[in-house]
């Protein structure tokens, strides 16, 4: 039982990160139909920038804010310089552009930062908390709590603000959105900025547990993508559930089968989803009346 709880907590922790990455995919996909494979790089920038800023003597809270702002700027530039000029291109072209952007960002990170692994001090010490025989790092609560806060804020943004609804309207019908006066270009920028900020927050929260380096974004993007696919691409609740499921499967797979297969699990999830449930858990066939 203790073992089971141990795996469950570590699965939920890493799953919360996948959920945030998947939410980043979802937001950009909804606003612009782009599947942004540079999503993992936002997580990397969040962690790495915080590490290097604190090394320069910047106090942690300020370093975190600056790292998030840095990721937002990168997100806006990505939209402006790579996605916007290719407006109207096919989705495959756009995906290749975002993969290219992610390789570029990784290369840039090697130059700006370095190629080492880095960590941050846990926010509330590293004395494990014992729950039912399983010991949990306090930082895990930061990760899960942070994810909950972000999900609640996003929910409020999309359901209770006019600009949040304008993002939903843009994803539902771009032509109509323009005709009611929504500046859809601005909405797309907003989506990239929001996704970048969410990714960066995830990166900051998880770095004390998983470490970070210039290339952590690659696997995170793939696992977040698996989570988004499992939940149903473009479905925010699906992204959260998908992230947690992928995280749990990974933790149980690594614990009960073999940790060698840990990284393979996300890919198995993608394959099974595509074969059995191409629209994902929460995706539904669209019905339209005429």
């Amino acid at each position, binding site marked *: 039982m203790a073992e089971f709880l141990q795996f469950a907590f570590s699965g939920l922790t890493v799953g919360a990160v996948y959920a945030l990455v998947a939410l980043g995919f979802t937001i950009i996909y909804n606003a612009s139909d782009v599947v942004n494979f540079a999503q993992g790089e936002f997580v990397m920038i969040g962690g790495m920038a915080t590490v290097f800023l604190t090394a320069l003597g910047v106090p942690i809270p300020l370093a975190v804010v600056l790292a998030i702002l840095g990721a937002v700027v990168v997100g806006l530039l990505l939209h402006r310089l790579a996605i916007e000029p290719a407006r109207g291109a096919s989705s495959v072209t756009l995906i290749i552009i975002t993969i290219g952007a992610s390789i570029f960002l990784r290369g840039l990170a090697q130059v700006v930062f370095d190629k080492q692994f880095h960590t941050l001090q846990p926010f509330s010490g590293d004395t494990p908390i014992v729950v039912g025989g399983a010991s949990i790092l306090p930082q895990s609560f930061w990760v899960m709590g942070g994810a909950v806060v972000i999900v609640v804020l996003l929910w409020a943004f999309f359901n209770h603000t*006019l600009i949040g*609804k*304008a993002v*939903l*309207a843009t994803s*539902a*019908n771009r*032509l*109509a*959105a*323009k*005709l*009611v*006066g*929504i*500046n859809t270009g601005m909405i797309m920028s907003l989506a990239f900025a929001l996704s970048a900020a969410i990714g960066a927050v995830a990166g900051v929260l998880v770095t004390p547990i998983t470490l970070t380096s210039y290339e952590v974004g690659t696997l995170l993007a793939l696992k977040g993508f698996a989570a988004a696919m499992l939940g149903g691409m473009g479905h925010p609740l699906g992204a959260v559930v998908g992230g947690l499921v992928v995280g749990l499967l990974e933790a149980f797979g690594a614990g009960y089968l073999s940790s060698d297969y840990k990284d393979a699990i996300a890919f198995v999830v993608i394959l099974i989803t595509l074969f059995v449930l191409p629209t994902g858990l929460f995706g539904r066939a669209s*019905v*339209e*009346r*005429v």
Partner: protein
Amino acid sequence: MLSVEGLGSAYGRIEALHGVDVAVNEGEIVSLVGGNGAGKTTLLRAISGVQPVTRGKVLFEGADITRLGPHRRVECGIAQVPEGRQIFGSLTIEDNLRLGAYRRNRGATTAFLEHVYESFPVLRERRQSLAAGLSGGQQQMLAIGRALMSDPKLLLLDEPSMGLAPILVDKIFEAITRLRDAGTTVFLVEQNAFAALNIADRGYVIETGDITLSGPAGDLMRDERVREAYLGV
């Protein structure tokens, strides 16, 4: 109020509008009739700024708006009810309407909402349901209501009768006449030439990207060529 001068527009290399001139004066209903693929929708989209223009000008209240983005034109007072209604199906009816007032002062939204609900009571009854669940006629009312939420000076309507039962078509056209009587200028594009010219002050006939006839709506309805081609007489 609206003046379109020598407007050209193309899809790739194929020109859909070959220099169109159209004018709409304040307080009028002006109808543009023509067959499928004549360029009616292209013209309306160019006026709203969601269709690229290759040459010519669009003037609104004397100002050149040819280069303005679509959201700025809504701000100027041009609203469009697009072809096929294009409602936000995954949002509630009330959210659809509130988004119609996206460019307007938040304080006035509630009053406009009340006004739209009075004109179309069925929308009030179902205001918290998803718009996708509405019938075709109700969706058309929602699309018109959404456009009215921006308090437009000029309302552009693209095929409001498309796909509706005749009794609903009458209702929609009655609603358009009431709007004009309440002071909104209307530019109406229709394949249903009889209904459109019947409520209009003036009309234009468009054929494959050129305006071929124009004049008072009554004259057009009596014109031999129009009767033969569009009125089925």
